[in-house]
């Protein structure tokens, strides 16, 4: 099974993963930048397909990170994934973006049995979720995702760029203190869950915050 995975919840990334390939990876790219998704994502995907000599017809499913993440960036990946899935007539699945970091943690040698993943939510807040881990299994989401102040998070080891940003109040793992959700891990997570017969969620974005819009109050009358 060949999956195209896309995530723009923080940086822009895409990956081709397959259960036939060595370590499952056919190809991947990610940017450092969190603000130029609209420019880099489509050319990145185009190059990814060309380098792997793959066309839309070869892809079995598309997986997209549904956040949480800054809205405009997050939407660029979901808009891309939805449109590709429509144009190629392929199934589309959504995965919570923090799962990507959780899988990366799970694959490291010193993964604890319970931990947090946090990314930058701007406005002095983090997006976060809590996972548990059992030997030989995928990380299990037990709480979240939420958005909130880093100081209010449970006292657990914390991974990801959000943890690194607030290492004064979080037990940030230095090896993961700038880690962002990456489509490569998201794709592998999806592949593993689909292989075990799980149904994956749809591509509805997890904004977690309302738009800033205020309903205007009645106009003050002059005295």
């Amino acid at each position, binding site marked *: 099974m060949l999956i195209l995975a896309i995530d723009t919840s923080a940086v822009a990334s895409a990956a081709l993963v397959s259960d036939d390939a060595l370590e499952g990876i056919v190809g991947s790219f990610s940017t450092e930048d969190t603000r130029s998704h*609209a*420019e880099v994502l489509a050319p990145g995907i185009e190059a990814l397909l060309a380098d792997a000599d793959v066309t*839309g017809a070869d892809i079995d499913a598309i997986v997209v990170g549904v956040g949480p993440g800054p809205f405009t960036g997050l939407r*660029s990946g979901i808009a891309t994934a939805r*449109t590709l899935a429509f144009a190629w007539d392929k199934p589309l699945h959504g995965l919570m973006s923090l799962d990507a970091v959780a899988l990366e943690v799970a694959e490291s040698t010193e993964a604890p049995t319970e931990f947090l993943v946090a990314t930058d939510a701007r406005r002095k807040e983090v997006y976060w979720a809590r996972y548990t881990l059992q030997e030989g299994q995928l990380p299990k989401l037990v709480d979240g995702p939420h958005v909130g102040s880093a100081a209010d998070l449970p006292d657990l080891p914390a991974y990801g760029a959000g943890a690194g940003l607030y290492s004064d109040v979080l037990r940030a793992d230095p090896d993961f203190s700038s880690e962002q959700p990456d489509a490569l891990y998201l794709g592998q997570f999806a592949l593993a869950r689909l292989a075990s017969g799980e149904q994956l969620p749809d591509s509805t974005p997890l904004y977690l915050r309302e738009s800033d819009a205020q309903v205007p109050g009645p106009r003050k009358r002059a005295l």
Partner: protein
Amino acid sequence: MNRSQPLVLGIESSCDETGVGIVRGTDLLTNTVSSSMDEHVRFGGVIPEIASRAHLDAFVPTLQAALAEARVTLADIDAIAVTSGPGLAGALMVGVCAAKALAVATGKPLYAINHLVAHVGVGLLDARPGNALPAIALPENLGALLVSGGHTEILRIRSITDDVELLGSTIDDAAGEAYDKVARILGLGYPGGPAIDRIAREGNAKAIRFPRGLTQPKYMGTAEEPGRHRYDWSFSGLKTAVARCVEQFEAKGETVPVADIAAAFQEAVVDVITAKAVLACREHGLTNVLLGGGVAANSRLRQLTEQRCSAAGIRLHVPPLDLCTDNGAMVAALGAQLVMAGTEPSGIRFAPDSSMPVTTVSAPAAEPARSA
């Protein structure tokens, strides 16, 4: 690619309408629009984040409906066109990402198009009742007056594909925005344009005299030595004047004459828009004017524009209203003109530009980004 009658799919997402239009040359096959306007009503204006969320959910269904109505498939399409600016940054992003994904999926050329020029390009679609512009070629000496919730401009079009000039524009609020704000002051609801237009008919436009922005000699100058804002508009002072007027009635404990204020406000807007537009046309030898944008629906604006244009010997062209408001057909129409003119596509590396100048009809292809 078919360059004489190209099948072009156009995508629009610069404000609160998600539009997908398909044209074959100058033939309109579909103009499918999904609007999030209802979601903005309780806020009294377009909320960018709400519009962007709506674009994301509306895009694929709108595309699907457009393809079905035009009875074509993505494989049939010769080129894709998308509004790249000007507009709301987050809203533009959705349409641009979707358009790029379509280009990647289908391998079709992509044109990143200027929204304002597309409002003019829509005038080139033929076989529409009431659409007075001739097919294929725009008339000589053409100007365009664009009035909407997002923009107020007067343009000169020497060539729809590569020579468009901004003669004047609003320096603050768009005319439609002023209508929304004043409707809120008068308690008339959203969108303000139709509400004010309706109640203004019952009012006396001469009951109150509101200021016409940027009409003092220091801004106007003369034809020979034009002032800095000879063809520009400003509506924020007008909005303040309306608010102050309402407050004065309230302070005196009198009933606010809503219909009179609405009529006088509308007259101030429409008077200064048409006066300056006609002036710009006369002084630039423009003998044809296309009226575009959602405020083209305003009855008083149409009436006074017609009256003043005909007095000045200018022919006025008003596309059907569903093509005046933001839509994908206008983007497809301009895209088809670019294909027919042999313009190079924009590729998939361009960035949407919320303040794209009218001199850029379509974005040039960007160099590959330096690898990090």
